[in-house]
């Protein structure tokens, strides 16, 4: 708080601006929805690839072909999700619903529509992961190396997405930790799961680091909101009974408290 020369105490406007921006950029619901979509893509692809592999090993041709067809349908479905305006509207409505009580706020710098080349990158990222799953299936790539393989494309795509959506500092944690995890795995650090749980080498980093980033973002947004309220709250609601009566009278007459 700073005191101006007019004799009144008022919060520093730079502080109000700073905490408004920080709060707006740290709200994680929009990010959470995208996280669910990306995680779902990877999770379902890995799951179906595993199923296809099992079908191939056990020479179960119908199951194998069903898995391949399902993978293709999934690819087209997620591509549609990435570019669909209806889905964008749904995400918007969901965001509004989640923040109904707290109110809606959109950061000033956030770009509303992603450039086409960024949307194309998302499609490429999905295709790349399907290729990766195929390589695992054909045994050209071991499943324990799928995470570093995935990181080669997922990390830059996430960095671009985060940059274009102007998310807060917390969002950068996801690709950074995911990238570090891949490097550590390649360097032979003992952070991989045992052979029977190798699938978790990709599932856990994707789920875990994303969730960690979201949780940090959420905690930070609560702190930013608390800071912002401490700077801006006029405490009009906490008044003695006489003042409340006067405020209610003023409300009904459309007057300001200052005019009472």
């Amino acid at each position: 708080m700073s005191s101006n020369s007019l004799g009144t105490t008022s919060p520093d406007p730079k502080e109000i601006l700073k905490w408004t921006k920080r709060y707006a950029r740290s709200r994680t619901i929009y990010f959470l929805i995208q996280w669910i979509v990306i995680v779902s893509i990877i999770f379902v692809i890995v799951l179906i690839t595993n199923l296809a592999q099992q079908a191939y090993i056990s020479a179960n041709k119908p199951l194998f072909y069903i898995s391949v067809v399902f993978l293709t349908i999934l690819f087209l479905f997620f591509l549609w999700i990435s570019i669909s305006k209806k889905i964008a509207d749904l995400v918007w409505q969901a965001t509004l619903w989640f923040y109904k009580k707290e109110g809606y706020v959109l950061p000033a710098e956030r770009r509303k529509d992603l450039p086409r080349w960024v949307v194309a990158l998302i499609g490429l990222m999905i295709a790349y992961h399907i290729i990766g799953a195929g390589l695992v299936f054909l045994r050209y790539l071991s499943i324990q190396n799928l995470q570093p393989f995935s990181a080669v494309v997922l990390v830059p795509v996430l960095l671009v997405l985060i940059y274009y959506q102007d998310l807060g500092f917390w969002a950068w944690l996801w690709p950074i930790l995911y990238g570090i995890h891949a490097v550590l795995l390649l360097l032979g650090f003992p952070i991989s799961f045992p052979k029977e749980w190798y699938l978790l080498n990709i599932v856990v980093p994707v789920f875990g680091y994303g969730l960690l980033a979201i949780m940090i973002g959420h905690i930070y947004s609560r702190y930013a909101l608390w800071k912002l309220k401490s700077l801006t709250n006029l405490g009009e609601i906490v008044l003695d009974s006489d003042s409340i009566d006067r405020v209610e009278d003023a409300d009904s007459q459309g007057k300001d408290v200052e005019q009472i």
Partner: protein
Amino acid sequence: MSELDRIVHEPARLRILTMLAGVEVADFNFLLNTLGLTKGNLSSHIDKLEKAGYVEVEKSFDGKIPHTEFRITSKGKEALEKYWAQIEEIRKMGAGEVKKED
């Protein structure tokens, strides 16, 4: 020095404008939640800011529930910047007077 803008000078309106200057858009509930004003008073302040051309109001419906969004206009941003420049000038003048007295 020109007179302070009375529209901007009021504490609640000053906070509304400052917060809106930091975001693209904010809705009624956000301002209500952070400012701790009554609904009537917030509406009254917004109305004054809108009449002065400092804030744009966009009303829509989310199903049957009304949703009102606000954004600061370029005129509002100019008024806010001018106000803070004036306050800064007054503060410097005040500090100068204190030094002279010392």
